Every structure is written in structure tokens, then in C-alpha cells.
């Protein structure tokens, strides 16, 4: 593999890695406020892409399609929380997880009924004539994905560190009871987490659609990879989630590059799963784990 080929793989790895990072962030937001692993997270990514495709078909310019998709899916997240999670906030984790599994199947089937079974395209945000950097030709969409991901991550950090609402959310994830005693509404924090989480994942979905298309069934695998990214970076750690996503994306791309036989791109999807198992086995707190994972 030559150096510019290597760069090529890295850049495509960073593109899909950014999407895993955003999905992983979505998992983290919900996990930190409720301890729930949301099995419908990947469906938010899928919905983001498909809604943007429809908006674009109806003549909306891409930036508008992007914003509408993110807002709409954010609302879906809020509705999901209100209808399905709220009644079970004090129930066991198993019940909550089963509800997210049900929601995932329901959302996926509704998407199939609306958009059909085909993979649908979306044009790149600014053309597809490649830019040559260090001998590697990089698609402008890669830069968009990387840039927007960066903006989202920084904005989220600012929100958490600088605003009162953000601090309230963090307080709840550290100690819900104490936060409540201080007058923070836990249920509003949970609501906000679901809305934000869905919106961020949807943004990832819109950005990746010009690169790899989107279909109703794509959510499950993206969700799984987002979760693997979480575990890699340490579940509950937002910085770890982003780093985990990027590392996972790059590892996947290099697997395709280094495995010489044909059809190796089919096995690329196995990388996330393998990493998930190895990390759980050897280092369950993740590479940058802060939260301790309880062993029993």
C-alpha cells in the first residue's frame, strides 16, 4: 500500500468514523442521564438521512433539508421519550431496554412503509470533484463531515460547560437525587437528553447519506458501531465516544485496505463487533474510561 493510498483509506475511515462518533455521542447523552442503552439510536441516524432526502426531493436547498431533518428527528426523540420512556423511568433497566428495542423495530418498519426498501441517494453538500491533498484525492464531503462533526462536538461541550441547563444535565448524570434536591427537574433533563441525542445522530445520518446512501434498514448496523465506539472510548465518556468513533472508522477502512481478497468490504462490518468483544473482555472501562464499570 502506497502512502497516498494509505491517506485515502484514512480519509474514508475518518468520514464514517465521524458518523460513528456522532452516534456514540447520542448513546452517551441518553446513557448518562438515564443509564439506558438506547437500541433505537441507529434508527435516528437512518431517519435523519431519509428525511433530508425527502426534503431535498421536494426542492428544499441542502442546508434547509439538513436543518429540517435534524429538528424533525429531534422531535421524534422527544415524542419517543414522552410515550415510551417516561412511563418506565422508575422501572427496571431490562424493561426500558426492551421498550427501545420495540421502538427500533417500529421506527424501522414505518420508515420502510414510507420510503420503501431501496437505498436512496442525496447529492454531496458541495459537488464531488475531489480535492488533492498530499497526493491523496479527498472528496469535499469528507471535509464537510469532519468540519460539521467538529462544530457539533464543540457546541455540545460549550453547552455542557457554559450554560446553566447544560450544567443541570451534568449534575443529573453525576447524582440525580442530589440534583433534584437542588431544584433541577430530572424529567426535563431526560427529555432534553433524548431530543439532543436524536438530533445529533440525525445530523450524522444526513452527512453520511451523500457518501453511502441511506435505506430503512441501515440503522441497526450504524447503531451497533456507534455502541462499539462508546465501549472503545469508555461508556459514558463523551470525549471517549468521539475518539472511539474515529478510531473504529479508521480501523475499519484499514481492514478493507489490508485484507487483499475480494469481498473484504463485507467483512469490514465485523471489525466493530470484534473490537466490542475484545474490549469487553480485556478492558471493559474502554481506552479512555473514566466511569468505572462495575464487575460482579
Amino acid at each position, binding site marked *: 500500500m502506497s502512502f497516498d493510498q494509505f491517506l485515502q483509506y484514512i480519509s474514508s475511515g475518518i468520514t464514517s468514523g465521524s458518523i460513528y462518533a456522532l452516534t456514540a455521542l447520542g448513546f452517551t447523552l441518553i446513557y448518562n442521564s438515564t443509564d439506558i*442503552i438506547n437500541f433505537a439510536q441507529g434508527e435516528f441516524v437512518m431517519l435523519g438521512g431519509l428525511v433530508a432526502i425527502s426534503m431535498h426531493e421536494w426542492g428544499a436547498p441542502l442546508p434547509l433539508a439538513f436543518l429540517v431533518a435534524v429538528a424533525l428527528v429531534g422531535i421524534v426523540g422527544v415524542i419517543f421519550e414522552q410515550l415510551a420512556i417516561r412511563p418506565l423511568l422508575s422501572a427496571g433497566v431490562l424493561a426500558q431496554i426492551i421498550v427501545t*428495542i*420495540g421502538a427500533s423495530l417500529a421506527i424501522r418498519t414505518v420508515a420502510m412503509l414510507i420510503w420503501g426498501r431501496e437505498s436512496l441517494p442525496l447529492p454531496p453538500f458541495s459537488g464531488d470533484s475531489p480535492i488533492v491533498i498530499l497526493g491523496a484525492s479527498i472528496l469535499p464531503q469528507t471535509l464537510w463531515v469532519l468540519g460539521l462533526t467538529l462544530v457539533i462536538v464543540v457546541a455540545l461541550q460549550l453547552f455542557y460547560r457554559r450554560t446553566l441547563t447544560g450544567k443541570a444535565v451534568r449534575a443529573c448524570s453525576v447524582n440525580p437525587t442530589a440534583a433534584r434536591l437542588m431544584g433541577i427537574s430530572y424529567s426535563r433533563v431526560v427529555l432534553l437528553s433524548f431530543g439532543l441525542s436524536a438530533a445529533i445522530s440525525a445530523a450524522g445520518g444526513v452527512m453520511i447519506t451523500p457518501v453511502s446512501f441511506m435505506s430503512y434498514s441501515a440503522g441497526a448496523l450504524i447503531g451497533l458501531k456507534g455502541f462499539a465506539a462508546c465501549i472503545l472510548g469508555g461508556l459514558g465518556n463523551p470525549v471517549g465516544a468521539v475518539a472511539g468513533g474515529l478510531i473504529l472508522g479508521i480501523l475499519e477502512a484499514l481492514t478493507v485496505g489490508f485484507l487483499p481478497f475480494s469481498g473484504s468490504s463485507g*467483512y469490514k462490518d465485523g471489525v466493530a*463487533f470484534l473490537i466490542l468483544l475484545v474490549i469487553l473482555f480485556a478492558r471493559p472501562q474502554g481506552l479512555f474510561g473514566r466511569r468505572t*464499570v462495575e464487575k*460482579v
Partner: protein
Amino acid sequence: MGIVAYARKHAAFLAFSAVAMCAPLFIGNKYYLSILAFTATRLMVALGLNLLMGQAGQVSLGHAAFVAIGAYGSAVMTTRWSVNPWLAMLVAALLAAGVAAILGVPTLKLRGHYLAMATLGFGEIVFILLVQLKGLTLGTDGISGIPSLTIGSLDFGRPRAYHWLAWGVALLMLRMSLNLVDSRVGRSLRALDRAEIAALSLGVNTSFRKVQVFVVSAVFASVAGSFYVHYIHYISPDSFSVTFSVVLVTTVVLGGLGNVWGAVWGSIFMLFLPEYLKRFNQDYTNLVFGLMLIVVMIFLPGGLVGLRHVPARLRRRFTPPDALPAEDT
């Protein structure tokens, strides 16, 4: 224990067994017989998953893959390598047990629901492999010409004979599950679901117990897969998507978590409901299943088996508290 005492203690099981085994004598319609046959294999999977979810408090999103190991194991070994079907079934079940141990040991050592994600990933991988490993599985074309099960001159390819065989095995698994729940193992499993730390400090090896029940559930699923292919004689990857795993979870949740009989009612309901929904549009079936998972968890956490408590609960709600007998309050 005398026969009468035994019959009284296990009345529900004996009555259900009698109904299940006698059903084919009264049903001539081949179509309904085949649905009943599928109910038997579904029950085998549901029983294992019910133990895992109800007793160990863990959920698997990859049980379709364990069914696939049994189904493809039997299909490949009998059609390609001419292995005896019974031996193939055994080998496939051992393979499923091994895989379950590999998945269970790292994930069940941790608190939380890592097993769910690991099994989801496993399900995806198995599905990819079934499609990609064309040399072994023939890819999306599927494998046909899978022989029927036989013992000597006894051919279990005929619907009634198969019914008795499959239901016999399913009932055996039901009996095993009922016994397990009642035994020391069952008590320690329930203990770890309710208060893991307490169970641990009383000397229950919690993670080992959880791995154990996960392995048992994988074996049940694999055996079900083997029986299934020897009945329909054809297999393709379509049947083993992650959606099927979710349908299996729905079977258990709908029937009732934490009660072995839940698996029975869930299996019966889930196989007859789609037959009814088919009259409208098959695409809606999965939507109904997904919504059912949510609605059951919120409004009827005990599932269909929990329905029997509903009248009492309603009565309590509409009775003034001071009119209630002391032990009910």
C-alpha cells in the same frame, strides 16, 4: 410421591401436554398442522430466551443466529457431508453452546446489558456470513433437499409423526424449564435478578450462573433450528435477520417475563397472530410487533400470563381501601 399427588402438582403441565399431543388427532387441515409444528419449534426457542430474560434478567438480540447455527449446521452437515441428522443436530448444538460461552463470559461478568449489544453484533455477523460464505451456505440461494428425520423405518417427514416428535421435545424442554425454575439453580438465578450483590455475598457465583443459562438458551435455540429445517427441507439467510431475533424477544415479552408459561402463550399467540394480520398487509406485522413490545412493557409487564392478575387489580382499584381484607393491602 404417589401418582395422584404428582398429577395434582403438575396438573397444568399434564393438561397442556395432553392437549398438545392429541391436537393432530382432531386437526386434518395440513396448513393448521404446519402452524402447530412451527409453534413447537418456536416454543423451544422461547423457553430458553424466557429463562434468560425472566430468570437472569438479561436479553439476547442474537437468538436468531443460534437458531441459524442449528438450522444451517443440520442443513450443511446432512446435505453436503451426509452426516446422520441426529449427530448433526448434536454437533450444531455443541457449536451453539461454545459460541454462547465465548459471548457470555466477557459480557456477563460486567454489570449492565452488554450481552444485548454483543448478541446484536453476533446476529449481524452471522447474517453476513450466511450470505457471504457461498461455498458453505450457497449464499442467498439457500440450501434445499434437506432430508427428514428418521429412526429406523420410522419417518418423521409426515406431518403427524413430526408433530409428535417436535412437540415431544418441546414438552420435554418445558418440563426442564419448569424444574429449573423450581430448583436451587432457579432460586439463585432469581436471586441474582433481584439483588445481585446479595446473591453474590451469599455464595452464588452470579456470572457463572448467567453464562450457564445463556448457554442453555442457545442450545434450545439451536435444537429448534435443526428440527425446523428437517421439517421444511429448505433454508435461506432471510429467515435469520436481526428482526427475527426481535420477534423472538417479542414472543417472550408478550407471553410474560418471569413465568415459564409465558413462553407457551407467547409462542401460540405469535404464530397465530401473523396468520391473522396477513389478511391485511404483511408489512404491518413488524410494526405491530414493535408497538406491542412497548405497550406490553408499559401496561402489562406480566404479559399474557399476567392477565389473570388484572381482575384482582381492578377490583382493588375500585374498592375503598378500608373495605379490603388485611392481607391484600
